[in-house]
Every structure is written in structure tokens, then in C-alpha cells.
């Protein structure tokens, strides 16, 4: 029942996105593709933090793994696009499993610190093996629209289609997962590890699984972003990216999948919009280039003060049950009642 509803919603969204992509200018299509790539990665992070209660400041590193994996497969093996994306998911998931084993022993700020290290250290591996990873200038990734769409088909629209499809599939899977036994177990672990363990849940295994899921999403997000921007390079996966993902998840509303969309929209659109505002109001280059960074901070502070539960939390407060319930809502409900009470995700 839940599954069918999620599919129906996703199908509806897919049709809307398709129509939108046909009407938008090539540049808006490009932005749509960027947003979709970020949504994929942020959704994985919001599930990790909101559901399993673990913090990661290192998901940018998993994006790097996905990005590099897709670039290497595209360049050396020339596999079809769907296989390339699959490889990137598997590669990032494996890395997530490895790291998750270590992470399952860490809590709170210590876990954050360990993932921070991952974000800082991993991209520089590319510099250690320049012949394989292309060193500082990285590897070029190029995709062209398939021939049947015609020679004049805008490449950015194709990018938007590919990334939106990736993001939608990710969201369906995550929505189902969070409504499943696994999702409920995660929430149990998040709320009280001891109680969860007493109920027969394998806490460490569940936490590692959450890490794997989040890393797989980040890997796909990284691969999609690489397809959009056309490059994988260490400079694209700095600590700033990892922080941006976390910011997107928190801004949108931790633990809510629509929140991942709001957060990603803020991440992609606010800097572009504000740069334009800055330069069109006659600010000098240096000043207008600082405007987005300052405004980003202001947006973060305002949202956190006004909507401590993120944008999705704020929407919920204003529009009530019409909007989706956060995945975190379980703890206020009695077991077994969630199917009637929770709205569509």
C-alpha cells in the first residue's frame, strides 16, 4: 500500500519534472540537474542523521568516490550510463561499509570528527596517484544525449532527465526503506540504543547499514554531479562540499525527504541569485562575490531561529497535516498506528 502510494507520487512528480524541463531554458535545466544531484546526496545524509541518529561531515568524500568511480568506468570501460551509475553506487557503498564499521564504535562529536577527517583526507588521494586520478586537474566526464533524441536536443535537458531520474529512484527507495522494518529499527536505535538492543536489535549492524545507505546515496549524487559539471577533481570535493550537504539537510529539515529538496534548492539557487543581485546593484566584484557567502550565513541563522525543524518543519507548522510528516515523527506515536497517521512522504 505504502509502496504503491510512493510510486504514484513519484510518477506524478516525474511527469511534472518532464514538463518543466521542456519549458525551461537550457540554463534552468542545468540548475535543475544540479539540484537533483544534490537532492540525491542530501537525502542519504538526512536519513542517516534524522533516522539513525549518526552524524557525518564526510559525505563529500563518498561523493568523490562515486564521482571518480563513474569517471574511471566511463573513460576506461565505456560502459552504458546506467551501469556507470550503478558502479558508483556500489563503490561508495563499499567504502561506506568499511568506514561504517569504524563509525559504529563512535558517538556524537567523535563520529563527526572521524567523518571530518575523511572529508579532508580522501580527496588528496587523487594527488598521490596522478596517473590514475589525473592529479589536481582531475578527470573529465562527458555525456551526450542519445542519438534518438536528435542532434539539436539540448545537452542540459538530457542532464536534467538523467539526474532527476536518479534522484527520484533514490527518494522512492529511501521512502520505502524508512517505512520498513529497517527504518523503524533505525528510529529505535536512534532514540535509545540500550532499549533497542534489549528488544533484540543488532545496534552496530543497523548503524553500519545506515552508513552504507547514506554513502551509496552520496556516491550516486557524486556521480550525477560529475555528469552535470563535467569534471571530477579534488578541488570539487573539499570540506566545503561536505559542510554544504550537512547544511542542506539541516536547512531542509533533518529526517524529511522533501526537506532534502528544499535544502538542495537553497544550496544551488541562493548563491547564484545573490551574485546576480550583488553585481546588478553596482557592487564591485570583490564585494558582490562576498554577498552570497554572507547571505548564506544569514539564511542559515534565520531558518534555524524561525524554523528549528528546518524548512519542511516550518511548512508543516503552517500548512498542517497536508504536508508530509517528517520521518522522525515516529517517536511521538504509539507503535502500530503510524500507517494511519503519517501522511505521504
Amino acid at each position, binding site marked *: 500500500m505504502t509502496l504503491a502510494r510512493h510510486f504514484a507520487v513519484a510518477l506524478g512528480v516525474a511527469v511534472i519534472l518532464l514538463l518543466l524541463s521542456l519549458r525551461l*531554458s*537550457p*540554463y534552468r535545466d*542545468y540548475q535543475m540537474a*544540479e539540484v537533483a544531484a544534490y537532492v540525491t546526496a542530501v537525502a542519504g545524509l538526512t536519513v542517516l*542523521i534524522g533516522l539513525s*541518529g549518526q*552524524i557525518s*561531515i564526510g559525505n563529500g568524500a563518498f561523493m568523490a568516490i562515486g564521482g571518480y568511480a563513474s569517471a574511471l568506468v566511463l573513460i576506461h570501460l565505456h560502459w552504458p550510463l546506467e551501469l556507470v551509475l550503478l558502479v558508483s553506487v556500489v563503490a561508495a557503498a563499499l567504502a561506506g561499509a568499511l568506514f561504517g564499521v569504524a563509525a559504529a564504535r563512535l558517538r*556524537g*562529536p567523535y563520529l*563527526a570528527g572521524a567523518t*571530518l577527517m575523511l572529508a579532508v583526507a580522501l580527496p*588528496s588521494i587523487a*594527488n598521490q596517484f*596522478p596517473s590514475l586520478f589525473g*592529479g*589536481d*586537474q*582531475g578527470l*573529465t566526464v*562527458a555525456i551526450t544525449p542519445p542519438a534518438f533524441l536528435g542532434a539539436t536536443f539540448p*545537452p*542540459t535537458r538530457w542532464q536534467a532527465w538523467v539526474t532527476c531520474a536518479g534522484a527520484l529512484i533514490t527518494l522512492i527507495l529511501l521512502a520505502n526503506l524508512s517505512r520498513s522494518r529497517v527504518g523503524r529499527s533505525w528510529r529505535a536505535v536512534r*532514540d*535509545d540504543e540500550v532499549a533497542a538492543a534489549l528488544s533484540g536489535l543488532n545496534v552496530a549492524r543497523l548503524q553500519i547499514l545506515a552508513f552504507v545507505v547514506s554513502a551509496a546515496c552520496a556516491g550516486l549524487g557524486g556521480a550525477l*554531479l560529475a555528469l*552535470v*559539471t*563535467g*569534471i571530477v*577533481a*579534488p*578541488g*570539487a570535493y*573539499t*570540506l*566545503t*562540499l*561536505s*559542510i554544504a550537504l*550537512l*547544511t542542506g539537510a*539541516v536547512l531542509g529539515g533533518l529526517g524529511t525527504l522533501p526537506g532534502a529538496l528544499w535544502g538542495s534548492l537553497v544550496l544551488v539557487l541562493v548563491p*547564484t541569485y545573490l*551574485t546576480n543581485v550583488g*553585481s546588478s546593484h553596482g557592487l*564591485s*566584484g*570583490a564585494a558582490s*562575490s*562576498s554577498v552570497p*557567502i554572507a547571505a548564506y*550565513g544569514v539564511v542559515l541563522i534565520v531558518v*534555524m531561529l524561525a524554523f*528549528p525543524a528546518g524548512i519542511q518543519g516550518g511548512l508543516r507548522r503552517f500548512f498542517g497535516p497536508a504536508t508530509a510528516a517528517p520521518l522522525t515523527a515516529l*517517536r511521538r506515536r504509539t507503535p502500530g498506528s503510524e500507517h494511519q497517521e503519517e501522511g505521504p512522504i
Partner: protein
Amino acid sequence: MKRRHRVNAVALAGVTAIAMVIAACSSSGSGKPSSSSTALTASAPGITASQILIGSHQPLTGVAAPGYDEIAPASDAYFQYVNAHGGIYGRKIVYKFLNDQYDPTITSTVVHQLVLQDNVYAVFDGLGTPTHLAVLQYLNSSKVPDVFVASGCTCWNNTSADPYTTGWQIDYVREGKILGNYIKQHFAGKKIGYFYQDDEFGMDGVKGLDDEIPQSQVVARESYNQAVTNVAPQVTALKAAGAQVVVSFSVPAFTALLKLNSLKLSFSPQLVVSNVGSDPITLGGLLESYAKQGGATVAGNQLTQGIITDGYQPSLGSTSNSWIQLYEKIHSTYLPKLPLDGNVAYGIGVAYTFVQAMFKAGRNPTRQDLMNAINGGLPQGPVVAPYAFSATNHAGVTGAYLAVVKNGALVQTGPVQVTDDSSGGAITTYSTTQPAAPASGIPSP
């Protein structure tokens, strides 16, 4: 339980804030001759009857910004000067440069914005090797002129795959050969150490050096990564190898770190530094601020004294040179707040070259007309050696002169030498005098 969540949320907010602070801290044609009566038309994207819109990506904030953030404003200053004196066939140049923070992902975003949304005529002087590589294919497949990239990577010279991309400054291989040739002649038998950035910039430079310097003389090869500011191990290794001359293909920040670490170890080899890492004003400022952070006071000019380097524009110290006089005029009128240093000179010089190319492209140029103008070769202008531009070569300046830093300025010590980027290609002296700057400061159509 509720309480614990509150603590977690606060901890999360705290960690995010700290991490943001960390992130913030680590953040810098052969145009058809047409009579002057031809009406001005909107002949290409970005060109209207009254203006020419061009775009660029530049590191205005972030790690690469110090120094490099002066380049685009300097180019813009020259464009304002041209606009104030009749423009290009009456059209004004509008230069929109966006901040990419030296992050290739952002470069891709802002260049898509410039091309798809702003409809720029051309991308001009996009700065950086890793950043610009991110948009190389995109610009060429979109057939957008991608002229005078601000990087000496030989990767911009690939006319068959990337016919719309051209370099401008002397490439690092040529520069390495010219510096290597000087070292071979003047430091025969001495022990040579290399210090270079571990990317295309450093490796192209080393390729040029190795072409000239006998391998038996090279006692150490130490590379650094831009992300790691501790270069003490490399400097220690250079000292241990007994290097008497250290050749450095480094950005200014790392030239400064090399110098300060050498001082700390009482290691004083003769420094030979590539042009991009040796601008005395930038370098002196960095040396003073780094030393201050370490609790010491140094005089920048004293520490840069005697560094051997090369230049491909007239030295800023030669105040009687017509080009430098032009630069001073533009600097004092439009850029009074910036120092007149190598970055500003770079920005003005490359902008001058663009104006040359636009005049040559004709009154109502298409995008292809601009490429045809460059492919047909450009007159020398503000640089000391001819450009390599032709239909099959998109490298920029072909030569440079040797110089030594004295009292914070470059002093030319040898003749202009030109070479190619091939291994074994001869280095010859270029004795033709550089043409003087036009009195108007604007290239003639």
C-alpha cells in the same frame, strides 16, 4: 530522551559552525574589412549595436584569491579605459566575471550561467588549470570562444580537439626551458634542487627544466601539494641533498613558505622562481604576513632580493617604458586602491590583447570571426616576444627575459629568449625591439 536530542542538536549546530569557520578560513577573424559606414548589428550572441558582453570565472574569494583577485578588475579597468575612448568600433565592452572560488564544480556552474543565461560572446581569461579544464570541453562543444586562459598549462594549445580555446601567457614548458638554459650556463657543476607544485603547472615546468639541465646536476626533486602548507620536509630534503641552487615552480604562497622554511634551517641556496610565483610585491606581502603569524618581523623586500626569475611583459620597475607608463595611467585612474603589481599588469596586458583581437575580428564579428582573427596571428602588443597564434597553434607568448629581483622590482638581466614547447627545440635570442605602446593606449583597428 527529549533532552538528549536537544543536546545532540546543539552539538550538531556547534560542529557545523566550527566546520564552517574552518571552511571559510581556508578560503581567493580575419574579419572582412568593412567600411566604417557599415551599421553595427547584433552579429553574434552577446553582441548588440552598443555593447560586447564577455564573461569569465575568477577566484575572487578562497585560497587562490590573494593576488589573483586583482587580475579581473585590472582587465575591467582597461576595458573601461577603452570604452571611455570610443570602445571597439563604438561598442562598449561589458566584462562580467563571476567568482568560482577556484572550485571546478562552481566553475562549471558559473560558466554555464555565463553561456546559457547571460549569453556572453566569449569567455575571456578564465583563471586556473583545474578550474578551466572543467569547462574546456563544454565551451568547445558549444562553440563559444574561450580566449586567453589565465594559466600556462600547455593543455590550452590543442587546436584539433579544442579549436575555440587559446592560451596567452608563456606556457610552463617554455618557461622551464628558458630558466633551465640559464641555470645550465650560469651554474655549471653546481648542485640543483627542484621544488614544484605536484600538478600540470609544476610538472610542465620540470619537463622544460629537465630538457636543459644535465641530469647529473639535479640532486633533489621535491614536490608539494597546495592543500598542505607544511613544506619543512621538502626544504629539509633539499638542504640534506646539498642543493646550491633551488628552482621553484610554485605559486606565490609556496614561494614564500619555501623562503621562510629555508631561513629557519639556515639554508640559503640561490633561488630561481618561475614568473607566476615571483611577483615581488605579492611575494613580499606574503612573506611579511606569514612571518607575522609566526611572531617574527621580516622585511619583504630584503627577502625577495636576488631571486632569479623571468618576465614576459616589460618590468614594472622600468618607468620609462611606454607600456609601463600606460599601465600606470590606467592604474591611477581606475584602480587606485590596488597595488600596481604583476597581477594588475597581467590583467591589463591580457585585456589589451583581447581588444587587439576584437578590432581584428571586424565591425560585426561572429564568434568564428574572433577565432579567425586569432588564428591569423596577433601583433605583439604588451609582451616582449611574439605570440605563437596560428590556425594550428594556440599557445600564447613564445619567450621571456631573465630578471633578478632588486628592491621589490624585476630588473631585466638578459635578452629576450624565445623557444617552442618541444623537447630539444632550440632556444634563441629574440633581438627585435618591442614596439612601443600606441600613444592613445588603444590598439589601432
